[in-house]
Structures are given as structure tokens and as C-alpha cells.
């Protein structure tokens, strides 16, 4: 190959690459890629809802109908059946109580500790802090056996208290970590200015720093609520009756029937994902910032 030929061929390659580049950054290609991805990520959510308002006959139709033409009358029968005949009123209550109590506990303690770690130094504080991060990163399944047995000994199996304790274990380290990073981003000069003005430390924390940390607290509260609401493993192992079963466990129970009641299962699944869907739509910014801060800064 002569020098000239090789030059033109590399020029041609360059042109092709440039054309491909122009195409995949072009408006239409980006739209097409995004639409395909959105379809892939949202379709199962849509399908859960559609299936949740079908009859068993509609569920078993093949090929399936994309639009629920055979929806039942009345349309919400699956939901009312779950609610009144399958104890989902209890499961919903349990899920709410557990998630809300956990959130209050975790956010209160996490905010206090986060502030403490951001403003004070004590011996081995860095090690304690890294230990907290480590506790968050360990796999919960590893703690299944000790929690299960300790709760058996303490006769806390099948209570909401057991779930609240486990979810506090799983979420508190993350919130301590997030809140500490949040408080670090608030200049300590502000604390100093408040002291000079005669504020006590508690007043400084409550009136000056905490209001500034509100977005961080909100992100932590949303994440803790969602993580507690969606948890399945411990809820499945530690609960036996309506006294403490949560919605994800209720959804899984549909598999235990002789015939799997997919229409009930879809309805239960939709109830289980509903708060998360609402939170994501309403508080997208908080969730995104919480997730990225929790991942990148810790």
C-alpha cells in the first residue's frame, strides 16, 4: 500500500467515525435510545398495574393483551379482595408503622451523630466513623442468623419491634454518614459566630445549623422510609402472622397458593411499589442527591 492510499483510507475511516458520531449524538438517535430505555425500564411497572386490574382469565390469555380489554367489573376487585380477604389492611398498617417509626428513629439519631462527627474530635473518631461505614456495607444476609436467634431468645419474633430494630441497623449507618457529610459542607464559622453572639451549643445546633441541613434530613428520611418499606428478607424470616407481616411478604405469599393468583400478586406488587413511585415522582431531586452523596462521598 502506498503512502497516499493509506492516508486516504485512514481519512475515510475518520469520516465514517465522524458520521457515526454525528448520528449517535443527533437529536433523533438520542430520542430513539432514550425512548427504548424508558420503555424497557417502565414497562414492567405498567404491566404490573395492567395485570392488577385483570381477571384470572385475562391473566392467562395468550398472546397477552397490552391494553386490559378484559378488565374486571368492578375494576378494583383484586384490590378490595386483598384488602378485606387477604389481610392487606393489616400488612399495610404494619408496613407503615415499621417504616415510619424506623425513619423517625434513624433520622433523629443519625442527625445527632452526623453533627457530632462533623464538629467534634475524640480519640479514635476516624476509626469509629469508618467502622460505621463498614457496618453499612456488610451484607444483611450475613446478619440473618444472629438476628433471627437473638429475636427468638428475646421472644421478639413476629413483632414489629424486631423489624424496626433490624431496619435501624440497616439504615442508621448510612444516615450518620450522609448527615456528617452534609454538616461538614456547612461552614463551622457559623457555629462560631453563634457562640460569639451568646447562643448555647444546643441553640446553635437547633436554630442555626439544623435549618440549613433540612434538605439533607429530607433526603435521609425519604431513603430510610423507602428502604424500610421495600425490605423483604428480614420481614419474610422474622414474621409469621398478620401481626407483623409487611406488604412485600404479602406479595410473596401469593406464590404459596396451589394456583398462583397472578392478578392478586400484581395488585399486591403495585401496592408495594406505590409509595416509592410517588416519592420518586415528587422528590426526584432529593432521592438523586441522597443516592449520589451516599455513594460517592460514602
Amino acid at each position, binding site marked *: 500500500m502506498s503512502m497516499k492510499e493509506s492516508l486516504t483510507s485512514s481519512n475515510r475511516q475518520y469520516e465514517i467515525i465522524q458520521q457515526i458520531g454525528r448520528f449517535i449524538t443527533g437529536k433523533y438517535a438520542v430520542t430513539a435510545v*432514550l425512548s427504548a430505555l424508558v420503555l424497557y425500564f417502565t414497562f*414492567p411497572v405498567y404491566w404490573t398495574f395492567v395485570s392488577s386490574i385483570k381477571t384470572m382469565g385475562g391473566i392467562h390469555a395468550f398472546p397477552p393483551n397490552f391494553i386490559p380489554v378484559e378488565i374486571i367489573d368492578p375494576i378494583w376487585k383484586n384490590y378490595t379482595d386483598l384488602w378485606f380477604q387477604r389481610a392487606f389492611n393489616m400488612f399495610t398498617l404494619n408496613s407503615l408503622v415499621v417504616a415510619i417509626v424506623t425513619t423517625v428513629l434513624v433520622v433523629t439519631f443519625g442527625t445527632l451523630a452526623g453533627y457530632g462527627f462533623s464538629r467534634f474530635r475524640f480519640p479514635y473518631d476516624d476509626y469509629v466513623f469508618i467502622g460505621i461505614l463498614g*457496618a453499612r456495607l456488610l451484607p444483611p444476609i450475613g446478619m440473618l442468623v444472629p438476628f433471627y436467634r437473638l429475636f427468638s431468645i428475646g421472644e421478639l419474633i413476629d413483632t414489629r419491634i424486631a423489624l424496626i430494630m433490624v431496619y435501624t441497623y440497616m439504615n442508621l449507618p448510612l444516615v450518620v454518614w450522609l448527615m456528617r457529610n452534609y454538616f461538614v459542607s456547612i*461552614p463551622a464559622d457559623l457555629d462560631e459566630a453563634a457562640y460569639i453572639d451568646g447562643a448555647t451549643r444546643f441553640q446553635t445546633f437547633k436554630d442555626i445549623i439544623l435549618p440549613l441541613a433540612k434538605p439533607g434530613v429530607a433526603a435521609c428520611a425519604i431513603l430510610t422510609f423507602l428502604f424500610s418499606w421495600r425490605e423483604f428478607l428480614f420481614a419474610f424470616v422474622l414474621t409469621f402472622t398478620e401481626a407483623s407481616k409487611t406488604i412485600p411478604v404479602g406479595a410473596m405469599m401469593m406464590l404459596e397458593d396451589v394456583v398462583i393468583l397472578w392478578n392478586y400478586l400484581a395488585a399486591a406488587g403495585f401496592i*408495594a411499589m406505590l409509595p416509592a413511585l410517588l416519592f420518586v415522582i415528587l422528590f426526584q431531586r432529593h432521592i438523586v442527591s441522597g443516592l449520589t452523596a451516599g455513594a460517592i462521598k460514602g
Partner: protein
Amino acid sequence: MASRSTTKDIREGFGLFSGDETGDVGPIREWINDKFMFVVLTPPLALLGAIVLLPTSYLVWTSTHITNQYRPDEFIGLENFIQVFQDPMFYLSLQHSVMYVLGSVTVAFLLGLTAALAINQVMSKRVRSTFTVLILLAWAVPLVVTGLIWRFMLHADYGIVNGIFMELGLISENLGFITDPTLAFISIIVVDAWARAPFASILLLAGLQTIPEDLYEAAKVDGANFLQQFRDITLPHLKPQAAIALLIMSMFAFRTFSIVFAMTGGGPANSTRVLATYIYSVGITQSRLGYASALSIIMIIITLIFVSIYVLQVQEDALETA
């Protein structure tokens, strides 16, 4: 941003402003003021100590005992651990876990990266956040529901996935996505990636948005095309975020329980049994708590390798930004 040194100066300055200088306060308030560090740190640390250290030490205790319903606890030293290393099911589930992590993290990362790059191309802020919401919906679904609903969608007789493939003419008869061992493993990986990709795209999108716009402007002036810009600007700048995303996703994929349990329960014929579902079946189904504890400890040690890489990485980042 408070730098580390300023924070430290302020901390040392605290002594100057305590006691009577803080104004007219009662004895209790004064005590709170004096010991504010203890007031904010003691309750959370005590709680953490109780709910983290107690189960952890108990885990170590049970792992050195034969512990089941029928016999009194009996100390057997490291026998449980020796047994683990002779257990073919342990190696099988570990192998599955590793394949699962590699498969699902790769797929999820590529999906998340594509989504992040595409969203980042969108100029309008509102459209961009709409797409972010739509992609985050998958993240919002509880993992056990993800498993259950995909199990339904992949059903051999009336699943929508078979329906779609059929209409597109890709298959001539329905596939047993959950009942065929190979297909079942591929299915759980794809479903896991579906649940994990939104998280990757959120992290990567955050990374993309920190890249200064003028770098691209300069590159465009120099005549660099999209692929060149991607290789020379985007990729190098995205590296830290990509590394952390991959690490976290691996840690979380390694511990996967709910998706596998809901989709296949470990079957067919153990083909999708991973470490987490093995620990569950040994500890809870068979009530061999001591043996399950030994398995748990080994799983935790494997995770600790990831954790220490992660902590080192995060510490470095923290020092850089300090």
C-alpha cells in the same frame, strides 16, 4: 465547603466560649452545653453498638458451635469452617454468585452508561428530569416485587415476554425462561441488571455533569468528533465515578437474595442458587444455625475485600476535596 483545618480550629476554639460566657443558663442547660459532644454522640453510638456489635459477636459465637433446635449448643471450634471448605454446594453457590455479579454488573453498567450519556445530551432541564424520573421508577420497585413481576412476565405459558418475542417472530414456540437451567440463570441476571441500572445511571449522570463544558467546546474547535470526545474527555473524567459505581453495584449484586428467591427460589436443580439463598436455606429452612453462621462469616470476609477498596477510594476522594 469547610476545609478540614478550619473545622479543627473551630473545634479547638470551643473551649473559649463555654460556661458563663454563653449567657444566663440553668444548671441542666449548662451541663448540656458543656458536654454537647456527649449529648449528640452517646445515644446514637450506644444504639449502633447494641444493634451492630451484639449480633456481630453472636454471629462469631454461633459459628463455632453446633446450634440447632434439637441439641444444646455445643462448642466445636472451627469445624463449621472446615466443613464449608469441603462443601460442594458452597463452591457451586459461590461460583454462581461470582457469575451473577459479573453478568449483572456488566449489563447494568452498560445500560446505565447509555442512559446517562443519552440523558446528558438532552438540553432542556425539564425533559432531562422527566427522563430521570422514568428511569428511576425501576429502582423504586421493591426487589422482591421485581422478581415476582418478572417471573410473571417471563412465564412459559402466558408471559408477556414470550408474547412479544412471538409477535416479533423471534421464536416459534414459547421459551421456559424460568424452567430451563441456562435460561433461568440468564433471566435472573437480566432482571437484576434491570433493577440495578437506574442506580448506575444516576451516579454516572452526576459524574458527567461535573465535566466542564469548555473541555468539549475546545475539543469541538479542534475538530474532535463524538467518539474522540468520549474517549479523551468523558471516559477519563468519569473514571472515579465509574469505579465507585462498579464497586457498589458488585457489593450489592453479591448479596442478592430477593430477586433470585422470588424468581426461581434457587432452582431449577440449583442452577440459580447463589450464596445468599444458600445461607437462607441452611440457616432458616434446615435450622443449621452454626453452619449458616460460618457461611455468613465467609461471605462477609469476601465482602470486606470490596469494602476496603471502597473505603480507601472514598477516603482518597475525601482528602482531595478537603
